[in-house]
């Protein structure tokens, strides 16, 4: 029997890795992928809580899963928009490396 804590720690670790990716990678594509990792970490956490805490307190059986469905929906929309922006960025600036794009610098 796997405790809830394990899933939560898995989610925390995945979130941290995703955050590192967002903060450290140069390519905008990789940053979007890292964001997907973070969203998945959240999803794991949500679904785990939904499974374990069903009927405890105010939690309903499927709330967590339904919110996870919405997260996936929004993630899909976000990916679509993000890659549209990346495409436009590439066309305008010839690169997708975010450290080469700093025209808003001081």
């Amino acid at each position: 029997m796997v405790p809830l804590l394990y899933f939560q720690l898995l989610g925390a670790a995945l979130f941290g890795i995703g955050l590192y990716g967002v903060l450290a990678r140069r390519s905008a594509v990789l940053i979007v992928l890292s964001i997907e990792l973070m969203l998945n970490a959240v999803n794991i956490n949500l679904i785990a809580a939904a499974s374990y805490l069903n009927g405890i307190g105010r939690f309903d059986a499927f709330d967590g899963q339904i919110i996870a469905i919405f997260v996936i929906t929004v993630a899909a929309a976000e990916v679509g928009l993000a890659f549209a922006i990346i495409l436009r960025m590439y066309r305008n600036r010839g690169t997708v490396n975010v450290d080469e794009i700093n025209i808003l610098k001081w």
Partner: protein
Amino acid sequence: MQLALFIIVAIFTIGGALGVVATRNVVHAALFLLLSLLGAAGAYLLLFAEFLALVQVLIYGGAITIVVLFAVMLTRSSEYPRITDNKQWPLALLTAAALSGVLGAAFWLAPEVVAEPQAPVFSDLAASLFTKWALPFEIASLVLLVALIGAIIIARAQNVDAPTDASSDGEA
């Protein structure tokens, strides 16, 4: 048995994620992401969320990964950059570790839950989605529509050879 399965799933998930943030090759990164997402789907199965696992595989594993691969192809530079991380990566590592630590500590110190994971009935999920969550569901569809149109407008080519004016106003 379940713990063993969890460990396998966790290794896939974490390993895939590390591959995403560590590899130089963008295509490899996308494939590593697929690995990680499939690992997450496995985790959902362990939590008796079969529908979510299915959605995960279909949408992430199918649609999103394909979009990513398209994007990678469309924006691929001729060679892979030697340096894939920016200058603040040590700081990013510290921050990420700190956030993970904070989250983990919070979970660790929270009151232990002794309940077992339960297997819900899918018809209840559908009923809940279309009654209690009906309005957010409709809004979500609208969000998708807006994102779709927005993506088309943003990505639409205004002229064919657009990249020629690149870096004309770029500065170091």
